[in-house]
């Protein structure tokens, strides 16, 4: 019976998806974000497709199980059919049908994956370096480079017994001192690496999660819709030591003109300074 409840819970969850997208309160946060890029929407569609496939299979399989449990009870005088031990036809059917469903799932998944892996024709390259515990962003063609850490308000509140209620801190643990700034409608290539241990750069709204591995450079890209400038938040997704939970990512997506102005301003600010400083040890 509890299973039936679970199923209805899952269905209710699915029904509650649409309004849940931007709720600040936790109860409505039940599903993946659709995100603000073409790829993130395709990932969301794949996620919903496989979810509904599972729901349908679940209804059939759990239905038969529940039917058996309710109908074939000894207490109701059910007599076992002890000759029913094997049936080749049925066994072939329930092997072949799942194979066909899987093939049907694999095709769109593979198609999206091929698109994700296409890192050609990028318009802006940014090197992202994860370190214990924060991120460094390096605009390779423009000589702009800076660090991004957990913001001060969160950092104060997150101390053990800080006495500060996290609910009073705006974007608690999801805010940084300096966000990554990128333009809309631009294929931005990230070259992701790690300075010390493995980290993982993840912004759900872009459908991008890629490990930052010391000694190796990973590629990822995203292109935000023209009409979707704004602040997008994510977190490090690979356990990286004591403060793994405290190295958020914030991406400030601006119009192309705003971005160009910001980049120019930032470049002139950084000009007189020496080349990018080494990663700070105590942050």
């Amino acid at each position, binding site marked *: 019976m509890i299973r039936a409840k679970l199923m209805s819970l899952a269905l209710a969850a699915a029904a509650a998806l649409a309004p849940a997208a931007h709720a600040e309160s936790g109860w409505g946060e039940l599903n993946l974000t659709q995100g603000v890029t073409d790829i993130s929407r395709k*990932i969301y569609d794949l996620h919903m497709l496989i979810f509904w496939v599972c729901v349908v299979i679940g209804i059939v399989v759990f239905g038969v199980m529940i039917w058996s449990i309710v109908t074939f009870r000894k207490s109701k005088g059910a007599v076992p*059919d002890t000759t029913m031990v094997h049936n080749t036809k049925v066994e072939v059917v329930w092997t072949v049908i799942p194979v066909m469903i899987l093939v049907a799932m694999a095709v769109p998944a593979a198609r999206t994956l091929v698109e994700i892996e296409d890192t050609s024709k990028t318009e802006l390259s940014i090197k992202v370096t994860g370190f214990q515990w924060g991120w460094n962003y390096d605009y390779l063609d423009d000589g702009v480079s800076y660090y991004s850490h957990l913001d001060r308000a969160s950092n104060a509140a997150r101390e053990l017994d800080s006495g500060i209620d996290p609910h009073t801190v705006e974007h608690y643990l999801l805010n940084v001192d300096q966000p990554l700034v990128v333009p809309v409608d631009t294929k931005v290539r990230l070259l992701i690496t790690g300075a010390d241990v493995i980290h993982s750069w993840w912004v759900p709204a872009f459908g991008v999660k890629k490990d930052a591995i010391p000694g190796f450079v990973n590629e990822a890209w995203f292109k935000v819709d023209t009409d979707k400038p704004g602040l997008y938040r994510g977190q490090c997704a690979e*356990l990286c030591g004591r403060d793994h939970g405290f190295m958020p990512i914030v991406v400030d997506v601006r119009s192309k003109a705003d971005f160009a102005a910001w980049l120019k301003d930032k470049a002139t600010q950084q000009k007189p300074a020496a080349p990018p400083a080494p990663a700070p040890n105590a942050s």
Partner: protein
Amino acid sequence: MAEHLAHDAAHDDHDHKPHGWRRWVYSTNHKDIGTMYLIFACTMFFIGGGAAMLIRLELFKPGLQFFDPQFFNSLTTMHALIMIFGAIMPGWTGLANWMIPMQVGAPDMALPRLNNFSFWILPFAFTLLISSFFVPGGAPAGGWTMYPPLTLQTGASFPMLIFSIHLMGASSILGAINVVVTIMNMRAPGMTLLRMPLFVWTWLITAYLLIAVMPVLAGAVTMMLTDHYFGTTFFTAAGGGDPVMFQHIFWFFGHPEVYILVLPAFGIVSEIIPTFSRKPLFGYEAMVYAVASIAFLSFIVWAHHMFTVGMPLAAQLFFMLSTMLIAVPTGVKVFNWTATMWKGSLSFEPPMLFALAFLFLFTIGGFSGLMLAIVPADYQYQDTYFVVAHFHYVLVPGTIFGMMAGVYYWLPKWTGHMYDLKLATWHFWLSAIFVNVLFFPQHFLGLAGMPRRIPDYAVQFADWNMVSSLGGFGFGLSQLLFPYIIWKCVRGGVRIGNKAWEGAHGLEWELPSPPPFHSWTSPPSEAVIARGAAH
């Protein structure tokens, strides 16, 4: 002469059972060693569970209330290591020790002294591991997956971690060798391979998996040991190594490992569902082949644990397809279990209740597993609470419920008493309800974007974390019933005959309850074997 025979008979009655501490420390008896394994596993279950309670306590609400983040990381790491290597694996070996000789018509395990050795390694291994909480730098905190370079930052507990992994691995390999030799050489005449109960089959395949992959884990951690102390750079890019290579080697062990944890549960459920459906298992041979295919596939899917490390497209496609393929034999198993109940005559004693919960909830874990196989979607799920929910669904209501089902199934056989059925039914309902309150909301948390292995979280994750924690406390408290029910049953209860359950088949039910100290001193006759092989 007659006097001599009579003397021998009298001697047999005494069963050569040693007394006092020697009975346990020097034991070469499969039942005593099995009991020690099970007590050990239960102890570790509560220690690992204690760590889980502390984790849920810290995550009850946002902000850090109790622990430093480093200690929190130690808790998650140690919870996993203790549960996997201390509770589940020794638990299965304990059940194998108790049941395999009885089920194949043998007097004992094939290698009794090895059996003693493989058990007695474990208390030392875990004393070493758990005492690492008290050394400078604290217990290992790099996750049970021990990825370098992070794990290379471990303090004084680093060599303790590596050496305890070596000990656990040695214990598992010796136990597995014993299982293989027993099954291959000690079966009674007439107990052909395709007459073996599925618990024996699944354990045979599990044992081969163990022998194949535990040395791989030992190799991986040894390479890390030499990286740390002897200047090698297997996993350090600066010296020409590759940190991702560790992940490949680890998961080449790690994926078969998850089937090591769950295959014996498949076997137990395949015995319990027919018993309480009063109907032979549907598709016995298909079940054996399905387990064998799952075991084979488990060797070629490892990189689905690491889709975000940046693999070539072709590799990602291969691992996606091979992973999806596992759904086919797993589906066959679920369909066969369901077909076994169809047109049966079902009753719902505690073993059946746990087996049914296994069936439903393991299937939910299978569904989320299928979702995780879709690589683009996995980019969003990877390292979030969605993954935590997935593997806890297959490990807690999957593996742990399967193990509890087995204990409740065979406990009357072991003790000769029926346990308190009402209390065990309470244990079931509390566990089944709380396990869902505990883990189902974690799907939502993961999808909403909460990474795993974090001690504190953004406030939009607060509500479901609180629900999950409440479920966790409820689940943890309910488990205290389990040792109490067992203890009560060992002390006494309604005496039962050879067969504890009306619909039970198999050689173990042909022996008295409790069975003699040496199970089958003479092999059972063909007729008895045929009566036991219900398929």
